[in-house]
């Protein structure tokens, strides 16, 4: 049974988590200034317009930074130590956090190209993990 923390879905996020179940990564784009943002908000954090809309992200990005957790963030993460938590700059522009799927944490580097890998952890939740794209 999946025992790690799961999101508390709310009015900002229901479309995001629903789409992940269909293996789609949605982010918000502002129709006014054309910029993307993440996490999803009811207004654009760049220009504050409320003309924000969901769009499909390509699911591609670059590692901006990361850490290797040698100590777990609570008991439920003990079984995956050591693991890599990374910040990805999506090709659309915004940054998002993820956990890397990798054989060895030592192989991870800033600047690596990555792609989303949908992992269905419960019937309700599919999480957007990422993995390096082998050149």
């Amino acid at each position: 049974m999946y025992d790690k923390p799961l999101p508390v879905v709310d009015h900002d996020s229901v479309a995001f988590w629903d789409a992940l179940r269909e293996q789609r990564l949605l982010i918000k784009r502002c129709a006014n200034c054309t910029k993307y943002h993440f996490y999803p908000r009811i207004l654009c954090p760049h220009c504050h317009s409320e003309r924000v809309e969901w769009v499909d992200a390509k699911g591609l990005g670059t590692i901006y930074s990361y850490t290797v957790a040698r100590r777990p963030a609570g008991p439920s993460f003990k079984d995956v130590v050591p693991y890599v938590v990374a910040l990805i700059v999506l090709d659309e522009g915004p940054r998002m956090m993820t956990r890397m799927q990798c054989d060895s944490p030592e192989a991870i580097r800033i600047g690596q190209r990555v792609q989303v890998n949908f992992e269905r952890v419960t019937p309700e939740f599919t999480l957007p993990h990422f993995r390096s794209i082998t050149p």
Partner: protein
Amino acid sequence: MAATREAVIVGVADAALRDGMLAQPMTPLQVQAKVAAAAVADAKLSLSDVDGLLTTGQWGVPGVGQLPTISVAEYLGIVPRFCDGTNIGGAAFESHVGHATMAIERGMCEVALITYGSTQKSARSRTLGGRPPALTMQYETPWGLPTPVGGYAMAAMRHMHEFGTTSEQLAEVAVAARAWAGLNAAATHREPLSVSDVLASPMISDPLHLLDSCLVTDGAGAIVMTTAEHARALGVQPIYVRGFGESHTHWSIANMPDLAWHTAAERSGRDALRMAGVGLNAIDLVELYDSFTITVLMTLEALGFCGRGESGGFVAGSRIAPGGSFPMNTNGGGLSYAHPGMYGIFLLIEAVRQLRHECGERQVAGASTALVHGTGGTLSSSATCILSRS
């Protein structure tokens, strides 16, 4: 109209620790009452003179700690006419000094009390677990980032990537803090430390080791402020608040504007120096929040003590250690003195004691003007105070 009321710090106190725990076991309210009484006594005042209260904390949540100024005032038997519970993490108390300065100078209160208390070590309440995965944290907590060290580790990783900063340079910060702690009988860890000791300590969240991380201790502190005129009447040495600034940029680490640059510190430092009307060359003592070694390096750059990416070289050669040319974190800091969850009040207390020339073996000779800088959250928030003895 010329400003006739000038806010000053007139009293400070902190609680004695033994092995990082309160020497005398107390609740968070008890220990705040003790340090509050000691700080007003240090100012030759009494608690009944206090008409402004500023406090925040992590105790009593959920519960009475959700409204900390109300709960502390009730416990102390104070009915304030100015209150402020600003919580921007560990930098909150530098904000409190700034806000109390405005309140005193505007005549909203005559004697302001700032308190903090934590029993996190005795209560064993500290974990690396993330924040509840609701609202903005639902996009981060599910990934298992150790909190708060993981966010600082990501900043350190990015700083190393962009500037070639090394683990040895980070370790210099911890080594210097320990050397200062060796001169402070009240510090939790005083035994000598070397760069190789830091590098040999367990890796917690790459690239940060255990000894790159602040302590987990109990602790409590209090600060009393009033007007310069009142201080003269009391016959106590006033410490002037010449300038302050505050800012914050993000709570979720993915939303930090630039992980290799402490934007909030750049802004709060600039505003504080501008208000004080002085440059960095006027500063002869620096107390910087050292939650992690990387926090210090990024803060030194953001405040302008060195250029972007140059902090690793700046701290080399024991420059920030006792006897070095840049006296900093002279009580041993959060890395070696104590770190009770929100450390910012202890930066201020140490700066006041240094400016009063009370620090014995660790006294910075002739210290006249200090820069005190708090950082809270995950490099999220900053508040800066410029303090002087004249």
